[in-house]
């Protein structure tokens, strides 16, 4: 019995009860479509997060004071032996060749006021390098001036939303605002940027790092953010930074985070999430398999007489098993194809509704969903097919 004959025979049998076949096929299709759509969602989330990091800067290395053994955990607990100082920052900027630009950073909160209007916002102290390192852009005026890091200046750059709120009508550049107890001149306004790594960059003030340290009464930096010349230099940069700071502090008491590590951590978390979503969707495929088994059992008992006839005509057990298994696999693979189509359409719909989410099913999920669908047909088809082969030809023929 050739494969072509087998498929042709099974197709003829399936056409005999179209509705039943279509419904069990639909079950498989829904399962496959669910796997495709849900993994596309997970993958979309992963790509979205990756995209967010790329917007921040892909060749970024961050140095935090304090030692932490695992990336991702909050460093700083358990004592900070040494401050990360401006001198440290200078030493790194000069000593590590791979560093293209380095911006020291101090972070706090401060009240900003202009006339009667007051706002409590995040205060960043940094340097003119931060413009490039943090991928910021100016809407108006200039960013922080290129002055030595240890020199302050009474100038401030405003986030876009803050600028709008403090100066609803007037041009903010050139105006003097009060930041805490300090009077400072507005020299520029940032382009709207939105959330960047959890901080709303539209609602900040940025001042020279030395000024910020004085205002906040800090002796150490919050972190160093640097941009490496090329992605391939990340490893060497990390080593260079650690060597210099260990030498200066007498021990290794800083944490170096490469963007790489952060992205990898998010990647693996969202990858696991995608797998989990796919797994949950796969359960519906198993349910669809039970549906196929049910349909095939009905089919076998309806065709008892036919099975008897086939045996009388000299069909072997293997051939009868193959004929009924072929039916189950045909249902499940046709359902698989339909499911891929449905899933594809659902993903397209999703992207149309949420263009920001780059949803697309990963290739492994598409392949696995289809393979699983076919396997489900084969596995759940075995029991009914075996039942058919075990029918006694005499009783099978007895019915009219």
């Amino acid at each position, binding site marked *: *019995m*050739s494969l*072509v*004959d087998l498929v042709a*025979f099974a197709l*003829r*049998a399936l*056409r*005999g009860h179209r509705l039943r076949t279509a419904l069990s096929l639909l079950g498989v299709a829904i399962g496959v479509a669910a796997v495709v759509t849900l993994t596309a969602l997970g993958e979309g989330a992963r790509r979205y997060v990756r995209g967010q990091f790329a917007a921040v800067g892909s060749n970024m290395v961050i140095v935090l004071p304090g030692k932490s053994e695992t990336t991702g955990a909050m460093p700083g607990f358990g004592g900070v032996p040494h401050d990360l100082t401006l001198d440290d920052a200078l030493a790194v900027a000069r000593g590590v060749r791979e560093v293209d630009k380095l911006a020291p950073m101090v972070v706090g909160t401060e009240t900003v006021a202009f006339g009667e209007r007051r706002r409590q916002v995040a205060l960043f102290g940094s340097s003119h390098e931060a413009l490039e390192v943090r991928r910021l852009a100016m809407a108006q005026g200039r960013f922080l001036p290129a002055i030595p890091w240890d020199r302050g200046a009474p100038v401030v750059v405003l986030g876009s939303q803050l600028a709008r709120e403090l100066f609803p009508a007037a041009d903010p550049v050139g105006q003097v605002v009060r930041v805490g107890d300090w009077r400072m001149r507005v020299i520029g306004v940032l382009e709207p940027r939105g959330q960047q790594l959890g901080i709303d960059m539209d609602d900040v003030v940025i001042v020279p790092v030395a000024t910020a340290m004085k205002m906040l009464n800090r002796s150490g930096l919050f972190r160093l953010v640097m941009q490496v010349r090329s992605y391939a230099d990340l490893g060497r940069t990390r080593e260079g930074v650690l060597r210099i700071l260990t030498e200066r502090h007498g021990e290794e008491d800083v944490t170096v985070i490469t963007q790489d590590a952060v992205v990898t951590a998010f990647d693996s978390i969202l990858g696991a999430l995608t797998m989990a979503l796919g797994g949950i969707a796969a359960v519906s495929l198993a349910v669809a398999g039970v549906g196929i088994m049910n349909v095939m059992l009905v089919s076998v008992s309806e065709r008892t*007489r*036919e099975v*008897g*006839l*086939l*045996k*009388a*005509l*000299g*069909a*072997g*057990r*293997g*051939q009868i098993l193959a004929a009924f298994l072929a039916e189950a696999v045909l249902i499940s693979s046709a359902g698989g194809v339909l499911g891929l189509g449905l899933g594809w359409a659902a993903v397209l719909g999703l992207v149309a509704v949420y263009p920001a989410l780059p949803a697309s099913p990963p290739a492994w999920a598409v392949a696995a969903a289809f393979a699983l669908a076919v396997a489900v047909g084969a596995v759940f088809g075995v029991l009914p097919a075996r039942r058919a082969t075990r029918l006694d*030809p*005499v009783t099978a*023929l007895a019915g*009219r």
Partner: protein
Amino acid sequence: MIRLAGISRTYEVGGEPVHALVDVSEEIQAGEHLAIMGPSGSGKSTLLHVLGCLDRPDRGTYQLDGRDVSRLDEAELSLVRRHTIGFVFQFFHLVPRLSAQENVELPMIFAGTKPAERRERALARLRAVGLEPRAKHRPDQLSGGERQRVALARATVLEPKLILADEPTGNLDTASGRHVLELLEQMNAAGLTLIVVTHDPAVARRAKRVLVLKDGSVVYRGPGSRIQEAVEILAAAENGP
């Protein structure tokens, strides 16, 4: 052709043993035309199933075409059924979704015959039973007599040596029944061994030899020309104690 020796077959029905065949021994020559008669429950269907290798005797040996088929396993039996035996049933047993031609091709599909050859042989068999113009019709588009002729074409398409017919005319009007019998007799005349199970004396009379079964045993053997004797034995068996 066929040698049955001491064949017994017992079923359990509701915990009670039913002796369908009791120590049946019989020889059937190649090319013979044999009719088997008997009241219902006499074991004639069981005998036909044993002869057709669809059922196994509990005891005794069955030699078919020089082979002891009572010892073969299921896979070998399916080959014997495929190549040595052709079945004709009272209710035709055509696959309703397949055309006449596809029904005739069915045994060749299991035998692995190539499609072109299959088509040719199926059409040749349909021509032989006068149904070539109806090759594309499905069973529900054919009359009873035509269906049985399709079944006949199917039974003979793999050129078996033995035709087993179970009440082949039981569901047909007289004219179509006669047509089917004539075709069966043509095949018998061409050398096929023909065994017909029937309760119709008019059918049995045409056989060369008649067996009458009662309670699983052969109670009468005689030529078809003396069918009246068989009918009397049968009547006695049906009315007897």
